[in-house]
């Protein structure tokens, strides 16, 4: 008995076979012309949308090159800003300052962000704490950057002393820690002192590169956390089971299998977060503050490209306006180079046929 699906009569056709399709009929030809038209129309719309998205980026780049390239010279990359009225000068200290603040922000923000994402995806499924963290991350993502600047100002710049009375019994253990000779470049605006009443923590007192780095790090965390979680969620469960089934402990499975499989997406998330904060001005206004001179210390106000661009662009001098354009161009090129380098580095060692 043949029960081939292709020969089974349609259930509502009284057992009759459907008439074979006449591919030459007028209706079929119209149909195919219509589908052809729709196909091309929708493809065209998609291409148009892509152009609309890319066009502003290209326009900005071209305009930046047009306005800024003429002010770029060696002095721009080697000199600090010149005093008002003097020609020349550069943004060398701002480029270095942005570098320092962004490296600090990445060192603080990326590990925390990835760790939180790992918790959400691998350990916190269905837990209340995970839902709370997810919600917090989403809200944090929406906090205006100026608010972040003010919050970090009040935490790490405004001078405050905390009396850590509960550390009183351990004050002798803390003494050698406080005697540690931290190099001046790495000192941060947090110091301990001990007196008869206990241990004191002194925070802030001045603007600092450290406060700027922390502000940017906090802005990076929610993006990284959520992309890490989403990327880990796309790792097939079967792969985790494969590792667990080989007697690999759960932590090892997460580190070497889940994270490794999701790493291209996680790296993309980190780069997105990095590129986003690299151009932030508002959170640095109240934290890193800016500096017209060289600064190599985390404990001092430091220059940053967005801050310097802001100062130059607000000024009444044409010379400074040109420098602001040049600075913007350098900032965008720096972000593009950083993102590209990480992408090249991350795609090395990918095997043939790996998905």
């Amino acid at each position, binding site marked *: 008995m043949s029960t081939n699906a292709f020969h089974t009569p349609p259930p509502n056709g009284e057992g009759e076979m459907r008439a074979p399709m006449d591919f030459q009929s007028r209706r079929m030809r119209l149909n195919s012309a219509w589908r052809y038209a729709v196909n091309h129309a929708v493809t065209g719309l998609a291409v148009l949308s892509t152009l609309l998205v890319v066009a502003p980026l290209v326009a900005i780049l071209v305009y930046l090159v047009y306005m800024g390239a003429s002010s770029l010279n060696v002095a721009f990359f080697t000199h600090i800003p010149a005093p008002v009225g003097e020609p020349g000068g550069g943004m060398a200290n701002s480029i270095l300052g942005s570098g320092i603040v962004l490296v600090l922000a990445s060192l603080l923000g990326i590990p925390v962000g990835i760790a939180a994402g790992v918790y959400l995806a691998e350990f916190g499924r269905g837990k209340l704490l995970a839902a709370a963290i997810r919600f917090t991350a989403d809200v944090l993502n929406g906090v205006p950057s100026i608010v972040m600047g003010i919050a970090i100002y009040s935490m790490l710049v405004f001078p405050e002393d905390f009396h850590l009375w509960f550390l009183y019994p351990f004050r002798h253990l803390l003494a050698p820690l406080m005697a540690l000779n931290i190099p001046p470049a790495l000192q941060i605006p947090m110091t301990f002192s001990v007196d008869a009443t206990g241990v004191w923590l002194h925070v802030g007192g001045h603007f600092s590169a450290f406060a700027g780095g922390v502000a940017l790090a906090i802005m990076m965390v929610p993006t990284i956390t959520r992309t890490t979680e989403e990327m880990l969620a796309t790792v097939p469960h079967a*792969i985790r089971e*494969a*590792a667990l089934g*080989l007697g690999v*402990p759960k932590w090892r499975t997460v580190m070497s299998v889940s994270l490794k499989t999701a790493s291209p997406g996680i790296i993309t998330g980190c780069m997105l977060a990095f590129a986003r904060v690299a151009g932030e001005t508002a959170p640095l206004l109240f934290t890193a503050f800016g500096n017209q001179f060289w600064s190599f210390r985390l404990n001092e106000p430091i220059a940053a490209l967005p801050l310097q661009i802001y100062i130059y662009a607000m000024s009444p001098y044409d010379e400074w306006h040109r420098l602001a354009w040049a600075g913007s161009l350098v900032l965008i090129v720096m972000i593009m180079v950083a993102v590209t380098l990480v992408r090249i580095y991350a795609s090395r060692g990918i095997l043939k046929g790996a998905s």
Partner: protein
Amino acid sequence: MGVGINVEHLNAWYGTTHTLQDINLNIPANHATALIGPSGCGKSTFVRCLNRMHETNPIARASGVVKMGDIDIYKDASPVTIRRRVGMVFQRPNPFPTMSIYDNVASGLKLNGFRNKAILDETVERSLKASALWEEVKDDLKKKSGASLSGGQQQRMCIARALAVDPEVLLMDEPASALDPVSTSKIEDLIFQLKSQYTIVIVTHNMQQAARVAENTGFFLNGKMVEFDSTDRIFTNPKDKRTEDYITGRFG
């Protein structure tokens, strides 16, 4: 060498669903044992209880005694040590996509911190030979990703990966159900060769497959084990009416 498994009063739950109800079973060492039964009858849950993979699901739990040799796997050992002694091959090939063929096979050792290159090389070669894949992949062991192989090759690589940690028991959860007939027959040949050295438990929907590779067969239905006997007897002269109905195709 393989080791026998003694299952006494094994019960398992997913949430409130009582998936396995009072299973008692003796799986002999160095033999292949097939588990058959309709979908959802608990065969997969049963094998997952034998290497404590069942409990990786947060809502799952199990009770009862599973003795491997003379250790009770739920009392005397951690899940991690049990899983190193009881290898598992899954229904769908699940290679690690970021790893080369070599790293896939060596993963059980490498991820557990084993670093001796000479021994790793030797283990990878021996395991791939045992799973009849060596000749096909020996030239691009480290160049190609494990995910670039065909489905049948991937599954043999997964078997090699399980063998590389030198288990005593090999659990196979429908290892050939996602494969074409040629690959299936290669896997069956492989099971036939491996069972002299390992205790093999294979879940299958394919009754001919059970008849071809296994000395003993158990029939599961609705979370209970209806009958367990030599494969010959199950397929020619089952004691239980339900077994007979199932193998003659009257349901399931």
